[in-house]
């Protein structure tokens, strides 16, 4: 089987989500990677280093700069003439593009796979991860998005793929990029961080959230997460949200501070290796899945913790 993987990249750097998608794709067959964008060349060189990649296709065109699906999907569809499967990471970009590709190819998409069980058989979460379905495709070609936390990352080095330039399909003339408010942070990114400190509704307001959670995150070199309640209440911006409708994370250590453990939050972090919960309510559902729990008032416990680590 020949598989084309969508490369997720930002500001000239290949993102980790791509590496998990490569691992998932390698379970199906020979892996080529498509890098589309205005600075696709340097990212293409990075993609060529990924272990296990046979060929990198580079589509360097300003039309692909912001991953607009109206422009990108026709490119992927044209390339799919030579492939059996299209695999994208289940990032907001991948989720935006892949179904558009699937519809144009007239195939069903298999969303957020957790494992490859056979050439056309996959597991995927349904009902916010409350059930896991095993599904088999009957389509001639596959379109798949990959949940990054469910697959190991392919090594960034060791590969020596050929790099090939492909012609673009140009502007569709349907959409344009206006602007972005992308959070700039020195901290590690949520989806690839080894340690995450997350805050919930108990943090009261944005000042308290910042004064309580950030010092601990700084000390532990951790990424900062938040529950949906904390984001809805405006304590932090949406890109921090961990949960079913936010980001799905699986760090080495996840520290939940003042988070009760609503089902949709647990859906986003329950695959973390070690879960630590700090909450003053000893009956909070978060303690049912935490490996280490501390029943304490976070306003005294967290500063104390910061002072001791």
């Amino acid at each position, binding site marked *: 089987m020949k598989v084309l993987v969508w490369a997720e990249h930002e500001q000239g750097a290949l993102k980790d989500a791509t590496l998990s998608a490569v691992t998932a794709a390698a379970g199906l067959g020979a892996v080529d990677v498509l890098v589309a964008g205005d600075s696709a060349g340097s990212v293409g060189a990075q993609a060529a280093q990924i272990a296990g990649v046979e060929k990198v296709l580079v589509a360097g065109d300003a039309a692909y700069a912001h991953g607009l699906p109206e422009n990108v999907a026709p490119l992927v569809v044209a390339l799919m003439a030579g492939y059996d499967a299209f695999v994208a990471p289940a990032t907001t970009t991948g989720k935006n593009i892949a179904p558009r590709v699937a519809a144009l190819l007239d195939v069903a998409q298999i969303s957020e796979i957790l494992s490859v069980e056979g050439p056309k058989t996959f597991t995927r979460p349904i009902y916010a991860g*409350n059930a896991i*379905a095993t*599904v088999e495709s009957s389509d001639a070609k596959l379109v798949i998005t990959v949940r990054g936390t469910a697959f190991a990352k392919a090594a960034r080095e060791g590969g020596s793929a050929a790099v090939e330039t492909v012609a673009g399909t140009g502007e569709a003339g*349907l959409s344009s*990029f206006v602007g972005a408010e992308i959070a700039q942070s020195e901290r590690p990114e949520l989806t690839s961080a080894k340690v995450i400190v997350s805050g919930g509704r108990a943090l009261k307001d944005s000042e308290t959230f910042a004064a309580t959670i950030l010092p601990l995150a700084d000390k532990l070199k951790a990424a900062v997460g938040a529950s949906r309640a904390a984001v809805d209440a405006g304590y932090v911006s949406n890109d921090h949200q961990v949960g079913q409708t936010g980001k799905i994370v699986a760090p080495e250590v996840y520290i939940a501070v003042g988070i009760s453990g609503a089902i949709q939050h647990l859906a986003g972090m329950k695959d973390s290796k070690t879960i630590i919960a700090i909450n003053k309510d000893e009956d909070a559902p978060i303690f049912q899945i935490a490996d280490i729990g501390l029943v304490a008032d976070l306003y005294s416990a967290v500063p104390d913790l910061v002072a*001791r680590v």
Partner: protein
Amino acid sequence: MKILVPVKRVLDYNVKPRVKADGSGVDLANVKMSINPFDEIAVEEAVRLKEKGIASEVVVVSIGGAKSSETLRSALAMGADRAIHVLSESEVEPLAVAKILKGVAGEEAPDLVILGKQAIDDDSNQVGQMLAALIGRPQGTFASKVEVEGDAVLVTREVDGGLETVKLALPAVVTTDLRLNEPRYASLPNIMKAKSKPLSTKAPADYGVDTAARLTVLKVVEPAVRQAGVKVPDVEALVEKLKELGVA
């Protein structure tokens, strides 16, 4: 402008899904069903655009079993004008849903289609994008803000890094994220009024769509259960644990 809002009837989000003992799926017998929360946000957004005088008509459409008409009535009670029920007792996959919606869009010629980014049952997150592809129009997914500007719509999207704004030529498809709005509760008079609003019933065949499944569900199981661990007595003990884990 006319707005089309596709809605889906799903297991109520407050109900904990139970996997059937035979592994064939999730038990939906005798459980509370509701409008998919993301679709409810879509209805609210469309009704607000009508209240602002930007939209002239809001048409809701649902593809599903007989009881999907209840979901359509709840959308009518929120302020939609008219409903179309595409009756199908068997499950319809996202691609076939998108094809039916293409047929509906062909007849209704909406300027804007607003729908939820995903249904909370199958969590596919596909229909909006697929519909946009099939009708050859732009898409604004995961919207947290929608502003109609002449013959275009500005959509602010919730993306992994933060927010992104795109400008789409109308007609366009918009899928909603959680923070787009807070849907209203329908008032009793509006619930009564909704009962007499027009609701037409169609079949997938009316749009020439084959709803045969492309995916076979081989089994559905409960996820692995995570066991609760230990409670530590104080911060000092927690610091010890963090040191053992190598993070402190």
